[in-house]
């Protein structure tokens, strides 16, 4: 097994640090360090929807806002959300919605905010992982956790959880995956690259292995803050 740029094993995650309930004003919140990524997520709601015609009589609407701080990337990003931010917000909101029992709260809104403070590849999966924890921290009834991770290829080997440096290698491919756990259902999947079918399947398998690790870390974080409930719910 060859060595990765940061000496991790091919199936090794970067260091992850989670703190729940960091935000005093939010009903649920999560601070997440994932390698050099830093993410804060807050969840509020369910609450009334304005304007009313945006409400859904069948379920709560999840308004997921993914934003990158201007200083989170190498060259300063404009503070105005771009197409990428809007697209990630849309698909991530759908992914998170599949984990929340939104049908219990018709005609309401669940506000989800994720701010990327520092970015080093994999921010959308880090954001979803944090947002899912913040939703649980907010006490929302959930049918599982969203455990998200990127898998891919770098320097001629299939690897888990790529860094920005790995993404910049010549043959790099990055597949952002989010699973509803423990059900192992895919709720987000995005990749652009050039990958043989067999490798594509293998990367997806790797992602699931990674997601299972993430799920364990998430459960541990929740059990620390909510010893009893955690045991039952997860």
């Amino acid at each position, binding site marked *: 097994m060859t060595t990765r740029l940061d000496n991790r094993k091919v199936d090794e995650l970067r260091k992850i640090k989670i703190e729940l309930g960091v935000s005093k004003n939010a009903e649920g919140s999560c601070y997440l360090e994932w390698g050099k990524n830093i993410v804060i997520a807050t969840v509020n709601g369910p609450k009334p929807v304005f304007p009313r015609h945006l409400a859904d009589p069948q379920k709560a609407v999840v308004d997921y806002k993914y934003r990158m701080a201007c200083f989170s990337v190498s060259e300063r990003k404009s503070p105005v959300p771009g*197409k990428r931010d809007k*697209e990630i917000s849309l698909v991530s909101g759908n992914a998170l919605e599949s984990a929340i029992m939104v049908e219990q709260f018709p005609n309401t809104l669940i506000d989800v905010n994720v701010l990327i403070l520092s970015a080093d590849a994999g921010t959308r999966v880090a954001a979803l992982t944090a947002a899912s924890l913040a939703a649980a921290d907010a006490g929302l009834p959930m049918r599982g956790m969203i455990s998200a991770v990127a898998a891919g290829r770098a320097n001629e080997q299939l690897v888990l959880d790529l860094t920005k440096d790995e993404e910049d290698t010549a043959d790099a491919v990055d597949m952002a995956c989010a699973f509803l756990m423990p059900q192992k259902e895919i*709720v987000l*999947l*995005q990749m652009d690259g050039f*990958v043989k*079918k067999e490798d594509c399947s293998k990367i*997806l*398998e790797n992602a699931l292995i990674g997601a299972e690790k993430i799920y364990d870390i998430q459960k541990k974080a929740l059990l620390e803050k909510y010893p009893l409930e955690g045991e039952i719910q997860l």
Partner: protein
Amino acid sequence: MSNDTLKIINAEKAKTYIAQKKREDGRDFLDHRPIDVKVNVINSADGSAWVKIGNTEIIAGIKFGISTPYPDSPNQGSMVFNLEVTNIASPDVETGPPSIEAMEFGRIADRVIRSAEFMDFDKLCVVPGEKVLTVFVDCYAINADGNLIDAAQFAALSAILNCKMPKLDENNNIIYKEYTDQLLPVNKKNLPLSFTFYKVDGQLLLDATDGEEYAANARFTLGICNDVVVAYHKGGDSGTFTIDEINTMMDIASSKYNEIKKKLL
């Protein structure tokens, strides 16, 4: 009858058919509707294509422009892709700025085209570091009845494949409507094709109609070059897929690749 009511009825109809293992138009779940491609249909465009997939119609048109290259790729031209889904395509589309869904559709179609190093951006360089060609690909939905991502991708691809390079004057400015006999530099071997599936009540559908899309709760788009995957994009509401389903869709798309490729080349 309001448009929303109509949509719900059409979605219910689609579900009823699917429960009976059928589709309203008699197709198999994994078949396309008839695909019709006409190229060079727009005189004012440098390249163009009018693609019909069933009742869905999209026109793609190409315009060249001269621009300054990005600092990190001084010798490469660029492509700007744009998909417009306005009120003209369907009375359901609201007047106003583009919807987030139309934007997402455009971004997915864009990425599939961009993938697989299909377009040779190095050959769009005019003066290294100073002037490069930008290829503007603008797609307009003329009638929207589902599968807009694939239709836009097919239309853009057809327009690109049939577009000649512009002549430049002594100052390296484009001479409008004059062309060299070179085609836009693309790698036809790596022709990337988009295959979008929708999932309705557990059933995977290829080339869904508007009613089927409204009935679905998950969408998945694959960009495919033969037996190579060039893009994966899960979208469309909070439905989920299993790993097996992803692999199945990959195999289906790969098996249909040559059939579609023939229609576009």
